[in-house]
C-alpha cells in the first residue's frame, strides 16, 4: 500500500523516521540502556584491559625489587662489571667447589659459570677474513646459568640478570665491530645479525590482537541486545506492538526504524568504547608492558579510525541479529534465555579469525563477525588491506539486510504476537516446526562439532560409527517420535521408480570425479592447509584397516544415517513449507555446512542438492541412499588404491555416467504416473496422490 493513496497529504517525515525518533526518545529515557551505552564502554572495557596488565606489572615490580645474589664462577671482568651495575644485583665471586652448596642453601640465587676459554673467545678481535673463517669453526662462547626454577621470586628478578648479560653481549659485539675494517665482505653479515637483535615492529603485545576483537564483538552485542529486546520483545509483552501493527504502517518501516535505533545505540557504544580503549592504550598504565624488551604499544589515530570503519558493518549486523532474535521471543525471560546462545554463536564466529589456518582464508571474509574480527586483528598487527575491508563491508551489510527483512516478517506472527498456538495436527500438516528445528539443529551441530572431533582423536573408525548412529541417526529418529510424524511418509520410505535407481547408481562415480575437479579448481582460490589434508587422509584411510571395514563405516553407514537425517527427516518436514527449488537448495546448503569444513562445503553442498533432487523427484529416499553409498564407496576405494581421478579415462567414465543418468531420467514410461516432479508446488499433495496409485 503506497502512502500516496492516503486521503491526506503533505507529510514531511517517512514512517521509518517517525518510528526511529519515537524509539530513540524512549530508549534514551531508559537508564539501563544508558548504562550499557555509556558506562560500560567508557569505564568497564578499558578497565578490563588495564587491570590485569597493571596488576601483573605491580606484582612483578614488587618481586623484581628484591635483591638477587649472583654468584660468578670463573673470570670475566667486563661481564662482572655489567652485572654489578645491574639493578638489585649483588655479585659475589664463587669457586668451582662451593657454588653448588651455596645455591642449595640459597646463599646465592643464581650461579653463572664462565668457562676458562670464554674470555679468549670473546675478546679476540678479528681483522682478516682468515680470522673470521677460524672464528666460524671455533666453539661459541657459552655461559651457564644455574638457578632453582621453583622459586618464583627469582624467576621474576632474573630479568635484571638477563638484561646485564644482554648488555654485555651487545657491548662485546660493538667492540668487535669497531675493530673491523669497514668494507670487508663478512662485516655486513655481522651487522645484519646485530640488526636482528632489535625487536621487530609488528611484535606488538600478543594480548591485544587476540583479545581486542573479542572485546569489540562483546561490546557491540551487549550494547545492542538490551535495546533490541526492549524495542521488540518489550513492546510485545506490554501489548503495545498490537497497537502499532493496527496503525497503517508497513511492517518493514517499523522494523527498519527499530533496527536503526539499535544501530545508533550500538554505534555510539562502539565509538565510545574504541575511543576509551584507544585512550587507555595510548596514555594509560598499560603502555609499558610486562616484558620491557618489547616495544611500547604504538597505534596511530588513523589505525583507530580504521578500526571504527570496519566496526560499522559489524554494528549493523549485530544490531540486526539482536533484533532478529528479539523478534523471535514473546517475553523478556525468553529473550534472556536466547541471549546466551546468541553470545556463544557470535563469539564462536569471532574465534574463527583466531585460527591461523583460517585467518588467510578468502571464505572467512564472507562470514559476518568472523570477517570483522579478522580485519581488526589485521589492523592491529598491520597486515590489513582495503580489499579485505571492502569485502567485509559488503558481505556484512548484505547479511544484515537479509536478517532485517526476515525480522520484519516475524513481527506479525500470531504465535509471537498473541500467543496463538498451532495444534500438533496442523503443525504436522504445515510442517511448522521452525523453532524446534532450530533448537534441534543447533544441538546436533554443536554435538557434532565438539563430540565428533573429540571422538575422532580417540579412534577414527569407532568415532565414525558412534557419530553416525548416535549423533545423526538417533536424533533424527528422536525428532520423528517427538513430533509424532508418520515415519514412512516423512522419510519417503517408498519403492522408487527403477529409472531413478539406475540414475543414482550411474552417477556414483561421476559425482566423485566432479567433486575432485571442483576441489582442484577451488584449491587455487582456497588453498588447503596441510593439517587439514592430513586429517582428511586419516578419515578416509584409517591406517591398518581393510577396505571392506572402511566402506562399511564410511560409505554404507552415512548412506543410511545421513540420508535419513537430511533427505528423510529435514526434507520431509521442510517440503511442506518450502517450494521445491528452495527446498533442495536449503537441504544442499545444510548438508554442506554439516561437513564442518569450508574446503568441503562446495562439493558436498552440490552433492546434497543432487541427493535432495533425487528424493524429491522420485518420491523415495532409496535412490539418494544408493547414490550416497556409491559416491562415498568410490571415493574411499580411489583413495585406498591411490587412483588418479583426473585422468582421461576417469573423466570419460564420469561423462558416461552422466549420459546414462540423463537418459534414464528422461525416459518416462507411459504406464507410470508422473512422479512428484520439481514443477509441483505442493509436494505433499502429490505424494499422497502417488501413494494412492
Amino acid at each position, binding site marked *: *500500500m503506497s*502512502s500516496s*493513496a*492516503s*486521503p*491526506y*497529504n*503533505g*507529510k*514531511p*517525515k517517512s*514512517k521509518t523516521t*517517525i*518510528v526511529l525518533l*519515537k524509539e530513540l*526518545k*524512549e530508549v534514551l*529515557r*531508559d537508564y539501563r540502556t544508558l548504562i550499557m551505552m555509556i558506562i560500560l564502554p567508557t569505564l568497564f572495557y578499558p578497565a578490563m584491559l588495564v587491570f590485569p596488565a597493571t596488576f601483573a606489572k605491580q606484582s612483578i615490580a614488587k618481586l623484581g625489587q628484591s635483591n638477587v645474589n649472583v654468584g660468578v664462577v670463573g673470570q670475566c671482568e667486563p661481564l662482572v662489571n655489567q652485572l654489578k651495575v645491574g639493578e638489585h644485583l649483588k655479585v659475589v665471586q664463587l669457586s668451582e667447589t662451593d657454588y653448588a652448596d651455596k645455591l642449595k642453601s640459597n646463599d646465592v640465587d643464581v650461579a653463572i659459570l664462565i668457562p676458562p676459554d670464554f674470555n679468549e673467545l670473546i675478546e679476540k678481535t678479528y681483522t682478516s677474513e682468515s680470522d673470521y673463517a677460524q672464528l666460524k669453526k671455533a666453539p661459541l662462547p657459552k655461559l651457564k646459568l644455574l638457578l632453582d626454577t621453583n622459586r618464583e621470586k627469582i624467576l621474576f628478578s632474573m630479568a635484571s640478570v638477563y638484561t646485564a648479560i644482554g648488555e654485555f653481549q651487545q657491548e662485546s659485539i660493538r667492540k668487535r665491530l669497531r675493530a673491523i675494517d669497514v668494507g670487508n665482505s663478512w662485516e655486513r653479515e655481522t651487522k645484519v645479525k646485530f640488526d636482528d637483535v632489535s625487536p621487530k615492529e609488528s611484535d606488538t603485545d600478543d594480548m591485544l590482537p587476540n583479545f581486542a576483537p573479542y572485546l569489540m564483538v562483546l561490546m557491540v552485542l551487549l550494547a545492542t541486545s538490551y535495546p533490541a529486546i526492549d524495542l521488540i520483545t518489550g513492546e510485545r509483552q*506490554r*501489548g*503495545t506492538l*498490537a*497497537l*502499532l*501493527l*493496527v*496503525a*497503517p*504502517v*508497513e511492517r518493514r518501516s517499523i522494523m527498519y526504524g527499530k533496527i536503526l535505533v539499535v544501530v545508533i545505540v550500538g554505534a555510539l557504544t562502539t565509538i565510545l568504547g574504541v575511543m576509551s580503549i584507544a585512550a587507555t592504550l595510548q596514555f594509560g598504565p598499560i603502555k609499558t608492558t610486562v616484558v620491557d624488551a618489547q616495544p611500547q604499544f604504538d597505534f596511530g589515530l588513523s589505525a583507530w579510525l580504521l578500526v571504527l570503519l570496519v566496526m560499522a558493518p559489524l554494528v549493523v549486523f549485530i544490531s540486526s541479529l539482536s533484533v532478529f532474535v528479539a523478534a523471535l521471543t514473546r517475553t523478556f525471560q525468553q529473550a534472556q534465555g536466547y541471549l546466551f546462545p546468541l553470545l556463544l554463536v557470535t563469539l564462536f564466529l569471532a574465534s574463527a579469525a583466531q585460527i591461523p589456518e583460517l585467518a588467510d582464508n578468502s571464505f572467512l571474509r564472507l562470514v559476518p563477525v568472523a570477517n570483522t574480527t579478522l580485519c581488526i586483528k589485521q589492523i592491529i598487527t598491520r597486515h590489513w588491506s582495503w580489499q579485505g575491508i571492502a569485502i567485509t563491508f559488503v558481505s556484512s551489510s548484505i547479511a544484515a539486510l537479509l536478517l532485517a527483512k526476515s525480522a520484519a516478517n516475524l513481527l*506479525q506472527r*500470531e504465535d509471537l*504476537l*498473541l500467543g*496463538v*498456538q*498451532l*495444534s500438533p*495436527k*496442523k503443525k504436522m500438516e504445515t510442517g511448522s516446526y521452525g523453532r524446534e528445528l532450530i533448537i534441534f539443529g543447533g544441538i546436533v551441530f554443536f554435538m557434532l562439532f565438539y563430540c565428533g572431533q573429540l571422538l575422532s582423536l580417540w579412534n577414527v573408525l569407532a568415532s565414525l560409527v558412534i557419530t553416525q548412529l548416535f549423533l545423526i541417526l538417533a536424533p533424527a529418529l528422536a525428532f520423528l517420535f517427538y513430533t509424532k510424524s508418520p515415519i514412512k511418509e516423512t522419510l519417503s520410505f517408498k519403492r522408487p521408480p527403477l529409472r531413478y535407481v539406475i540414475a543414482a547408481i550411474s552417477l556414483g562415480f561421476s559425482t566423485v570425479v566432479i567433486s575432485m575437479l571442483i576441489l582442484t579448481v577451488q584449491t587455487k582460490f582456497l588453498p588447503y592447509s596441510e593439517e587439514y589434508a592430513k586429517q582428511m587422509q586419516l578419515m578416509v584411510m584409517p591406517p591398518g584397516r581393510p577396505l571392506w571395514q572402511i566402506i562399511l563405516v564410511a560409505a554404507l553407514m552415512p548412506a543410511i544415517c545421513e540420508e535419513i537425517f537430511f533427505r528423510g527427516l529435514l526434507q520431509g518436514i521442510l517440503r511442506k513449507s518450502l517450494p521445491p527449488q528452495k527446498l533442495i537448495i536449503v537441504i544442499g546448503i545444510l548438508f554442506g555446512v554439516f561437513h564442518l569444513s569450508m574446503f568441503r562445503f562446495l562439493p558436498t553442498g552440490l552433492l546434497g542438492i543432487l541427493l535432495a533432487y533425487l528424493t524429491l523427484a522420485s518420491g523415495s529416499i532409496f535412490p539418494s541412499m544408493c547414490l550416497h553409498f556409491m559416491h562415498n564407496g568410490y571415493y574411499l576405494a580411489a583413495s585406498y588404491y591411490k587412483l588418479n581421478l583426473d585422468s582421461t579415462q576417469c573423466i570419460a567414465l564420469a561423462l558416461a555416467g552422466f549420459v546414462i543418468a540423463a537418459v534414464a531420467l528422461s525416459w518416462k514410461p507411459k504406464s507410470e504416473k508422473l512422479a512428484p516432479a520439481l514443477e509441483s508446488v505442493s509436494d505433499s499433495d502429490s505424494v499422497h496422490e502417488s501413494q494412492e496409485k
Partner: protein
Amino acid sequence: MAVEVKDLKKHFYDAKRGEFLAVDGISFSCSQGEIVGLLGPNGAGKTTTLRMIATILRPDSGTAKINGFEITNDPQGVRKNLGFLSSETGLYERLTPREILNYFGQLSDYPLDKLQQRIEDLIKLFEMSEFADTRCERLSTGMKQKVSIARAIVHDPPVMALDEPTSGLDIITSQNTYQFIRDSKAQGKCIIFSTHIMSEAEKLCDRIGIIHKGKLFAMGTLEELRELTGAHYLEDIFLAIVKEQVDV
C-alpha cells in the same frame, strides 16, 4: 455498509482444550452512523472477532470489509480506516500521553498541520490536560484507558472497533465515553463495540449482537430481540437466547 463481516472463523489450540473454534462463523454488518454492540460473556469470542477485523489475527476462513477494504487482501487500507481499541493492549510507559497521540497521529497520516489541534481537542474531550505531559508509567488505570481511547481515534477514522471501552473507568468517565460514542455516531461514524455489561449495550446500541461460545446467536434492535424472546430486559433476553441455543 461501512463494515461487513462474513462467516469469520478462527480456531485456537491449547494443550488442555485441544483444538476449538473461538469464533464460529460470525457474520454481521454495520453502517455509517450506527452503533453495533457485541454482547457476550467471558470467552465468547468478542476480542477475537474484533482482532480479526483489525487485521492482527488472520481468520481461518471468512472475510470482512472495512469501508470497502478487505482485511486479508488490503490490510493497510483497513488500518487507515479503522480505530481499534483493545482491552489487552498497553501504552508506552516512557512516553507521555501527548507524545503517544503525536506518534500515532503521525503514523496514521493525519494531516500534520491539523494534528496539534486534534490532540488538544482530544485532551479536552477526555479531560486529560492534568496528566497529558506525565509519563504513562505514572498514570492510573482509568487515566490509561482514556489515553488508549484517545490514541485509537487520534486519526479520526470512519470506523471504530472498541473492545470493552469502559473497562476500568469510573461512572463519570464512562458517561463521558458514552457521550463520545454518541457524538461520533452523530458525525456519521460506524462503531462496533464489545461489552459484557447489559446496561451499556441497552443504552447505547442501535443493534445488539449476542455472542456465546464463538457463535452469533441473534442480532437486532432491542425491540426485535424483545419480540424474538418475549422478555423485556436485556439480561432476560440474553439468558433466554443463550439457554435456548444451548438446550437445543
